[in-house]
Structure formats: C-alpha cells, structure tokens
C-alpha cells in the first residue's frame, strides 16, 4: 500500500476543515503519515489518530516560522524520505504551493497545484485558464506532490482510528542558510465573517459602491457570507487587499456569488466564474458581468441590496 504524507502547518488548538479534508483524501490513497510544524496539542494528536494517521513527524527545530518556506520544504523532504511517502499532500494556500514547489525539486517529484480531486492512482483533477478548462494530470515521477484546494471532499474520520506514534525528524542544517528571514509580523484584525476562500456564499462589491461597503457587508451578514471585492475597490482603499477576488486576488468557488457594482472584467471573472450560482447587480445593462450571471438585476445597488437584506431578515425572523 502506498504511503501518503500530509503536511499540517501550525494546527493550533483544533484542525481546520481543510486539514481534515487532506487527511480524508490521504486515506483513500494509502497509509497516512502526518508532518506537523508548530505546537501539537493532545486534542489535535487525538484527531490525527481518529483520521487514521499511523505516524506523526515533528521537526527538530522550533524556528521554522521565522523563515519563508525553504526550511519547511527541507523538513518535509526529510520526512518524506523517512516515511517512504509516494504522495505528499499540502494545502493550496500561496505558502502551501511554494513549499510544494521546493519540495518537488528536493524529491525530484512532479508537483500539481490547485487540485480539486484525486483518484486512487494519484491522478489529479484541476481547472485551468481561469476555469475555462478542466484537466487531469499525473506525475511521471516515483513521488507525487499535490496541493489540494479546500472544500473538495467531506471530512470523514477513519472507521478504525489509530494511535499514531510521534517521531522527531532533523531539519537539515543547511536549510536556513539561504532562506529569507521574517523580521516582523503584524497580525490583522479578524472580521468575524467566514473565510473568503472557503465561504459558501460571497457578496462582493466594486467601484459602484463609491466608498461605502455598508450595503455589501449588511447583505453578507444577513446571508452568513464572506465579503469580497474587485481590485478597483481594494486599490481605492475602501477595503483591505485580502478581500480582492480575481486573477491577482483570491479564487473562490462558492455556492453563491453576489456581485454588486462590479463590471466583470476578465481578471475579476477569473476569480469567481466557477461559482455555482452568480447573481449580479449593476446599473449598466451592458456590463460584461451580465453575460455570466444566472440572475441579473439592472438597477442601483443602493436600492436593491438594502431591500434584499431587509427581506432576508424578515423571512428568517
């Protein structure tokens, strides 16, 4: 049976849903080992067992977070060797992809990013060219490295939970020598709203908001949605850059994407056109966003959004 290695970076006090998804996929491919960087609480260790992990590897060094990706890739390569892993799974965050990239070179392994499904033989499925194609790809190397998008499977604990043994693996001494060092880090204030990348519903606003994100935020809160934005809105400083959806922002594939005051430029569409249902509110009937909207409203968002918010509150009451 194949050996699969899952990388979980700084799990904190409980595993994220995306980590549980990776563990679920790993079990469908073979025997699972996990590499954890950072604290490993008893709860997390217990969950790893419940999800079928046979072994948990931890780094000999505690300062991997002080550097950009390179030492994490070196640690993971050492674990992959030790565990005899033929598949390594990572999360598809920018950092996850970069660790995957360097790991691929270290292991002479093919890397496939943005994966949305993995077959039992390691064939990966993804969508490319801004969602216009779906492709299947496979590594031709003995080891495969895959970064997998969130929300691709339902997390399932193992039928027979295990009690994984914990092992420490040395981080190669040269790993930090040629790595960029993080000299300061500022935490951002959490919005309390769902995370944009894996939210079920996203309400996004653009230049049409004219500086006032209120109507978008209120509708988002009534729907329990995340707030997104076009680049015009983030460039104007109306909302933080993290909210940008699109080619140079985030790619989202929610059940529902509501676009308000956004024209629908190709770079914006690139981030959202795999949404299941798209609703657009724009006062210009010629806006390209209407070409892809399942439900389009030609109208003033300052009328339409508050009215919808009120109606949702009324129906939910």
């Amino acid at each position, binding site marked *: 049976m194949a050996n699969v290695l899952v990388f979980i970076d700084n799990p904190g006090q409980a595993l994220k849903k995306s980590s549980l998804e990776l563990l679920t996929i790993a079990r469908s491919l073979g025997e699972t080992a996990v590499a954890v960087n950072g604290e490993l609480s008893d709860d997390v260790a217990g969950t790893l067992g419940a999800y079928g992990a046979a072994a948990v590897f931890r780094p000999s060094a505690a300062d991997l977070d002080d550097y*950009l990706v390179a030492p994490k890739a070196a640690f993971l390569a050492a674990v992959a060797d030790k565990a005899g892993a033929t598949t390594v799974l990572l999360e598809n965050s920018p950092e996850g*992809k970069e660790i995957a990239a*360097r790991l*691929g070179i270290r292991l002479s392994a093919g890397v496939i990013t943005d994966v949305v499904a993995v077959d039992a033989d390691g064939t990966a499925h993804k969508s490319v060219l801004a969602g216009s194609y779906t492709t299947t790809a496979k590594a031709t190397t003995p080891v495969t490295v895959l970064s997998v998008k969130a929300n691709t499977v339902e997390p399932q604990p193992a039928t027979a939970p295990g009690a994984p043994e914990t092992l420490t693996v040395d981080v190669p001494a040269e790993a930090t020598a040629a790595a960029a060092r993080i000299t300061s880090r500022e935490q951002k204030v959490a919005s309390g709203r769902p995370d944009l990348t894996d939210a079920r*519903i996203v309400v996004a606003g653009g230049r049409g908001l004219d500086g006032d994100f209120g109507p978008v935020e209120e509708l988002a809160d009534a*729907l329990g949605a995340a707030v997104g934005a076009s680049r015009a809105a983030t460039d104007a400083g109306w909302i933080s850059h993290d909210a940008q959806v699109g080619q140079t922002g985030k790619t989202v594939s929610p059940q529902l994407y509501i676009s308000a005051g956004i024209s629908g430029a190709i770079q914006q569409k690139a981030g959202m056109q795999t949404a299941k249902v798209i609703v657009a509110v724009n006062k210009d009937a010629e806006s390209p966003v209407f070409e*892809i909207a399942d439900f389009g409203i030609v109208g003033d968002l300052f009328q339409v959004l508050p009215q919808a918010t009120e109606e*949702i509150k009324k129906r939910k009451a």
Partner: protein
Amino acid sequence: MKIVVLVKHVPDAQFDRHLSGEGHTTDRDESILSELDEYALEAALQLAEARGGAKAGNKVIALSMGPAGAVNAIKKSLQIGATEGVHLTDGALAGSDAAATSLALAAAVRHLGADTPVDLVLTGMASTDGETSLVPAQLAERLGLPQVTFASSLEVDGGRVTARRDADTHSETVEASLPAVVSVTDQINEPRYPNFKGIIAAKRKSITTLSLADIGVASSQVGHTGSWTRVTAAEERPPRTAGTIITDEGDAGIQLVDFLAAQKLL
C-alpha cells in the same frame, strides 16, 4: 547591479484561450508580455534608476524562454526600458512543466552570471496562463538562493533585500541576502508604458539568443521528456450563459430573495 527579469509570452486573456495537441498545451497565437511580469520589470527599472541607471553600469536583462514569438515579450521589455534581452529558445523546450522550466531558467541565469554575477532575479507573482506560482520557488531551490515571494514593496541596500508581504491573517517584513529570487505582486508599483523614445532606443538594444547547448542543458532534461508531470486529458467547460436579467422597478431586492429561496440558498 545586475538584475535578470523573467518575462513570459502568454496568451492574451482577453481572447478565448485553448489547450491543444498531445500535451494539452496552450495555443500561443494571440500572445502578449504577461501583465504580471510588467510589475517585476518596473521594479527592476526603479532599482537600476535609483543607482544611476545604465550609465552607472546597472543592467536590467529581460530573459524569456519560449518559441520564436516569445521574442516579442523581450522587445516590449526593451521598449519599456530593459537594457538588454535574452531569448532562450529551443524546440526541445516545448511542453516543459514548472520543474523543467525552472531547470532551464536556472541554467540560463547561471550562464548570464558567468562573467559578472547576477544580483537579483525578479519575476511576476504568477504567469497569467499556468497560474501556478511554482517557477520562482523552484528556481530559487535549484539555484540555492533565498526566495522572497509576493513582495508588495521592495528595497535593496547593502547586499540585502527587504520586502513587505501581505497574507490573509497578517502582513510581514522579510529580509534576505543577495543574490536572491524575488517575485512581486501587482500591488508593488504602476508599470510604465513604452514611450516613443523607448521604442526608438529599443531598436539599438541587443537580444542574445541562447539554445540549450549554450546553457549546458540536455534536451532530455526539458520538454515533455524532462517534465515530471503530464496532462492526460483536458476538457473545455461549456461557457457560462446568461440567465434571467430583470430591470429594477422597485421590487428587485424582493425578487432577488425569491430567486435565492428557489435555489435553496437562503
């Protein structure tokens, strides 16, 4: 300072893009200089200008790997202000994945640093076609250099590069010694356009063509044979079609909620 900027010739996203052939690679007919590489080029030009420009011996080398047409990305870079261009082109490179691409680019960067060393390799945050962001990190790993990725600001001083990065939960400052590989986001600057003077000046600038033999890479190390991944199937998604469009007559908000309820999205 000697800066190499990686510039890619990519299919223009304003047109429909297609995958074709045995390897399901992108058609490159309607191609342009990748917009995201313009930010890297601008960053390089600013660093060179701050040090006295070409007159003071600062070099901004635009390096592109790709078929004949990729020379257009280099020409545009020269018009914008790069001092020289290098075109790595060889039939055997076709179909290279990120691993094979980074292998060839690493060899090209080493070749360009053979006489005087390269201080900085600058790239865009991702190509606008492959969109993987793998190449900068793989290039850094292959060259044994620090990588500073997704820089939204950049300073070079005393043999060190300092950059700001913006992640979801935090922003950070990172520092590395030169030489380094740095990728920049579209937040870092406003790329300039080629002006008339630049277009005229570009005609006198040299473009060096390199083959795999020139950089000491065997054809079996790149292209489909040298790649570590293979695309086995590609299927075009049916384009999204427009659904119901209504014009607000005072109750569009209510109709919107009716629609969401009917779709079981409330």
